[in-house]
């Protein structure tokens, strides 16, 4: 009995040591900064100075300005569109890589190919869209040469469309990966069993394959959402400053030393992300699936 207690004691001691680095790290670099941002958002901001006198001024300013609330809705809109695009492009890709490719080696190779763009830096990947989409860019030149269009398409670059195209390309792989993983874990026999029971491909997909891949969709959607909601570089580089996301506002506010306003936007962004993630986690019980 006493030896059992001492084993328990030793185990709880080990547990504490194993937990310590994570807890210290997370508190110092996540919990404390978040609390700090919340705190600073109530500070008093003057043109060149900031003082810790509590005020709601920055919050009032955010919600009374069309620019700020507008950028909140732009962020939500772009996020929803990019999420839908990554899903529409990513799911069939994942279906091919994870389910239709029979060889494990080949499906790994295909996944690695999806990741190859990540070998170059994020900015290069974003900026590479400029020579692609521009008025004299690759797409317009090809379409003109083929005689499909007479005038170059101008809406391709420095519009919301270019931001959506760029983000979809950059974040698609985060959707493909988790879905392909879940699909590859589906026992091929159950698909054969469903077919043997007379279900057609459509039924098998909607009743078996899709429900079983749903945890992957949720994980992918969380990845994409978190990254898109916090985005500022793609919209900065591809929209010609026409699309202002919450991330862009933070960058400008910090640039002009408006710490209080930057904090307000930061808190709002954090809350939005929290709601989005909580919403996705309600769809499936990830603890049970993974």
């Amino acid at each position, binding site marked *: 009995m006493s030896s059992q207690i001492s084993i328990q004691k030793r185990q709880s001691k080990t547990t504490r040591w194993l937990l310590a680095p994570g807890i210290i790290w997370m508190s110092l670099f996540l919990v404390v900064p978040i609390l700090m941002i919340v705190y600073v958002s109530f500070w008093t901001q003057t043109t060149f100075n900031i003082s810790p006198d509590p005020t709601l001024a920055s919050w009032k300013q955010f919600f009374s300005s069309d620019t700020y609330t507008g950028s909140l809705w732009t962020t939500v809109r772009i996020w929803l569109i990019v999420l839908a695009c990554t899903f529409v492009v990513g799911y069939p890709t994942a279906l091919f890589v994870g389910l239709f490719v029979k060889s494990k080696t080949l499906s790994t190779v295909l996944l690695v190919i999806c990741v190859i763009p990540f070998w170059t830096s994020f900015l290069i990947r974003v900026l590479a869209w400029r020579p692609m989409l521009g008025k004299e860019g690759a797409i317009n030149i090809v379409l003109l040469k083929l005689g499909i269009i007479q005038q170059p398409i101008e809406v391709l670059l420095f519009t919301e469309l270019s931001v959506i195209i760029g983000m979809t390309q950059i974040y698609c792989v985060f959707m493909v990966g988790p879905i392909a993983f879940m699909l590859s874990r589906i026992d091929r026999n*159950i698909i*054969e*069993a469903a077919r043997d*029971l*007379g279900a057609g491909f459509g039924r098998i997909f909607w*009743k*078996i394959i899709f*429900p*079983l891949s749903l945890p992957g969709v949720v994980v992918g959607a969380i990845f994409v959402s978190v990254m898109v909601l916090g985005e500022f570089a793609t919209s900065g580089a591809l929209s010609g400053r026409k699309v202002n996301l919450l991330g862009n506002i933070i960058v400008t506010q910090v640039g002009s030393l408006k710490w209080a306003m930057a904090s307000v936007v930061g808190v709002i962004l954090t809350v939005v992300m929290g709601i989005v993630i909580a919403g996705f986690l309600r769809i499936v019980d990830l603890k049970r699936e993974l």
Partner: protein
Amino acid sequence: MDTSVFRLDGVTKRYGDLVALDNASLEAGANEYISFLGPSGSGKTTLLRVIAGFEAPEAGRVFFNGRDITNLPAHERGIGFVFQNFALFPHLTVIQNVGFGLTHGKSGLSAAEIERRSLEMIELVGLSGMEGRGVDQISGGQRQRVALARTLTMHPKLVLLDEPLGALDANLRSRMRTELRAIRERLGVTFVHVTGSENEALAMGDRVVVLDRGRIIQTGTPGEVYDSPASPDVAHFLNRFNLFDGNLSGGRFNGVFGSVPVPRSVRSDRDVYAVRYDRMRALPVSADAAGPAIKARFVASEYLGSSMMNFFEAEDGHVIEMEHHLSLGTPQTFEARQDYLLTWNPEQAIVFGREASR
């Protein structure tokens, strides 16, 4: 009239250079329990998958209910398949699994009728009251029943079971054996059961089909297969025979145990002398055996409840097994690492040879 439920005609299947099935022909009647016995890689699962329609044979035809179904896709064959690992739909409940084929196939039944038939089948396999459970909340044996019920709701004329008891523990396995037979008899359909276990094949099959390296090497009732294996390989798979190499000539078999007269023998491509484990007798090493005898050292014994297995090692390293049925009296006790003289009645041996008398 053709009374057979299904017939295989020279079915051949290759995977690259590997011949999985070599010219297999077989006929199965209605209302029969057939077991396919063979070691892994013998082609028994491939044969089952060809019948089910999951694999297409390179040559040969498959007939079902008098119709050539060789080119028919699996779901149009009306043949049920129970997978080795059950292949249940993990996100659905028991009743959703059982009713899947009726709900999502071409049955055209009303939801109420589907529920009635699913519940009826759930009751038949003894799972009443569990229909609302998720399939990950039930035990292995219960999952097996769900898999069976899911196939049976489609009213197949033929049910194929791929090592259905392989995933169960020993206790459950023997209970499911009886259960499977009972369910089959109630429905009056033909079951084809693939197994690597000779006990299972003999216990369950009305007919046993023995496969080796893609060929059907014997077909018969369990009694026929057990009492007169058609080849040394069959005798080997049955795991009931001590096999001795040697040579058969002029009506005598010459082996490590000396030269024995052979009254009759079975044609085979090699000369093998087979003696059933329970036909062996052990004598003190100094005794004078009347018939064939071989000197062997006692290694160990194993108590099996109804019988005792004794293991001996001959001088050439060959392990010889001797089974003593405990109903015949208390077993002999043997000294470890002592030599004994093993003998048997040559009348009871089965001899295979190139020079065969029948």
